[in-house]
C-alpha cells in the first residue's frame, strides 16, 4: 500500500484542493494516469499518479490539503485487499488531513449536482448565440451552444448565460482558468524567494538570426498554416541542445548543492491573457523535432490559458526559457524560478545594422540572455552556454 501525496506544483505552493476525482475507489491506476484535478494558485492542474495498482481512500473534494498530505492510497497489483493480508493500518499519527466526521459533509457540499436549468440537448446545428453572450459564457465556463435561448428567434442572450451560470454548482461554474489575484500571489512568492535566495548573475549576447530566418521562411513558404513553424521553436530547440552540452545549467539547486536534471525539460514561459505567467515543461525538448516542438508549444499555450496543465509539467522543468515574441521588448533579463539554476531569455527579433565581412548590413538580430545562479555556476560556463545557443542557430538545418 503506497500513499499518493499532494504534489508540490511549484516553488510557491503550500496547499492544493482536490476539486475533481477522475477515478473512483477500487479503480486500477497506471503510472501517468490523470487521477484528479487540483486547484492551485496557478489554476486547476490535472494531477497524474505515478503509482501502479488499485486506488482507494480518496480524500473528499473541496478541502485545502498541505503539500505532502495523503490524497489517496494505492494498493500494488497482486497485493491482497482482504484486511487479514493487508499491511497494518497506518498509525494514528499518520498525516490524515481530513477528520472522518467532516468528510461526508464536505463531499456532499462539493459534489456537483447536474445543472437542472436551461440545459437543452446538444443542438444538431450551432445555436444562435449573441456575441456578448458567447463572451460571457466563455468567461463563466458555460457551454453557450447547449443553452435554450430566450432571445429573438430563440437566440441565446446574455441573461440566458447568467441564469445557467447561477444554476451551476459553485466550483463547476468557475472557468478552468486561474484567478488573477491568486496567480499574482503565487508569482510574487516565487519571485521574492528567488531574489532573496539566489545570487543571480547575468550575461547577454546578440545573435544573428539571418540563417535561422532564411531556413524558417523556406520551410513555411510551401506549407499550410497548421504546419508552419514560429521562430520560437528554433530558439527553444537551440537552447535545449546547448543545455545538453552545458549540463551544469540544467537542473536544481537544493539543500546546498546542485543536482543535474534527468533530461532537458524546458519550462516554457507562457504569458496568460488577463495577466499572469506560467512556465510548464516541454519534456525532453532536446530530443524532439521542430514540428513536434511546434505542436507541443501550441498545445501547452492552449492548456496554460484554458486549464488542463498536468502536474508533471508543473514539477519537471529543469530550466526556464522565455521568448518575448514578435511584439515584445528587445531583450529580457529574467528572474530564476527556484529551485532551477538558470533562465534563458530571447528578445524580439529586430532588424538592425550588423557588421558582416567588414561591412555594415541590415540583419535580423535577437538579444539572447542568461540569468544564472552563482551558487551553481560561474559566468565563464554561462558564456559557453550562450555560445552554444548561437552556434546552434547558425546551423538551423541541424536542429
Amino acid at each position: 500500500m503506497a500513499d499518493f501525496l499532494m504534489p508540490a506544483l511549484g516553488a510557491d505552493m503550500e496547499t492544493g484542493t482536490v476539486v475533481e476525482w477522475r477515478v473512483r475507489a477500487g479503480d486500477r491506476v497506471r503510472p501517468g494516469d490523470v487521477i484528479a484535478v487540483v486547484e492551485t494558485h496557478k489554476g486547476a492542474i490535472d494531477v497524474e499518479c505515478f503509482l501502479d495498482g488499485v486506488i482507494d481512500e480518496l480524500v473528499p473534494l473541496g478541502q485545502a490539503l498541505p503539500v505532502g498530505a495523503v490524497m489517496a492510497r494505492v494498493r500494488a497489483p497482486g497485493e491482497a485487499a482482504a484486511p487479514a493480508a493487508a499491511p497494518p493500518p497506518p498509525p494514528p499519527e499518520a498525516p490524515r488531513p481530513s477528520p472522518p466526521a467532516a468528510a461526508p459533509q464536505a463531499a456532499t457540499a462539493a459534489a456537483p449536482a447536474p445543472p437542472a436549468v436551461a440545459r437543452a440537448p446538444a443542438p444538431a446545428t450551432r445555436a444562435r448565440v449573441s456575441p456578448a453572450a458567447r463572451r460571457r459564457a466563455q468567461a463563466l465556463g458555460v457551454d453557450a451552444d447547449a443553452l435554450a435561448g430566450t432571445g429573438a428567434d430563440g437566440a441565446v442572450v446574455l441573461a440566458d448565460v447568467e441564469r445557467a451560470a447561477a444554476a451551476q454548482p459553485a466550483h463547476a461554474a468557475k472557468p478552468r482558468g486561474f484567478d488573477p489575484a491568486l496567480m499574482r500571489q503565487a508569482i510574487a512568492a516565487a519571485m521574492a524567494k528567488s531574489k532573496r535566495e539566489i545570487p543571480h548573475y547575468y550575461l547577454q549576447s546578440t545573435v544573428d538570426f539571418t540563417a535561422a530566418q532564411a531556413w524558417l521562411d523556406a520551410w513555411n513558404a510551401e506549407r499550410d498554416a497548421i504546419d508552419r513553424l514560429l521562430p520560437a521553436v528554433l530558439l527553444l530547440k537551440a537552447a535545449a541542445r546547448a543545455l545538453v552540452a552545458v549540463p551544469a545549467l540544467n537542473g536544481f539547486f537544493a539543500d546546498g548543492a546542485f543536482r543535474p536534471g534527468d533530461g532537458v525539460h524546458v519550462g516554457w514561459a507562457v504569458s496568460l491573457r488577463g495577466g499572469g505567467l506560467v512556465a510548464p515543461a516541454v519534456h525532453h525538448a532536446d530530443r524532439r523535432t521542430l514540428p513536434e516542438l511546434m505542436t507541443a508549444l501550441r498545445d501547452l499555450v492552449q492548456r496554460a490559458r484554458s486549464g488542463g496543465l498536468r502536474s508533471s509539467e508543473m514539477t519537471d522543468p529543469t530550466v526556464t526559457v522565455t521568448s518575448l515574441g514578435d511584439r515584445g521588448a528587445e531583450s529580457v533579463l529574467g528572474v530564476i524560478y527556484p529551485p532551477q539554476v538558470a533562465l534563458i531569455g530571447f528578445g524580439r527579433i529586430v532588424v538592425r545594422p550588423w557588421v558582416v565581412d567588414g561591412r555594415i548590413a541590415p540583419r535580423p538580430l535577437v538579444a539572447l540572455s542568461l540569468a544564472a545562479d552563482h551558487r551553481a555556476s560561474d559566468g565563464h560556463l554561462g558564456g559557453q552556454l550562450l555560445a552554444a545557443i548561437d552556434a546552434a542557430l547558425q546551423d538551423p538545418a541541424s536542429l
Partner: protein
Amino acid sequence: MTETEIRALAAEVLAGIAPEADLATVGDDEDLRDALDLDSMDFMNFVIGLSQATGRKIPDADTPRLQTLRSLVAYLGG
C-alpha cells in the same frame, strides 16, 4: 463570402483565441495584433482558423494581409 460573413467569421475565430477581445472596438485599419494583444502564436492560430473555416490556403507571404480588418475583408472577399 460577403463582407458581413467575413467579419462574423473573423469574430468567431478570434473568440476562440482571445475570449475577452471585442472586435467591435477595433478600427478597420488598426493592427489586430496590437488592438487585441495577440502574440505570434495567437496570430498564427487566427490564420489557421481562417484557413480552415474558408477551406482556402493562405500562403505565409500573404499573412500580413490578415493584420487589419479592412485588408482581411479585401483578401478573403477577393
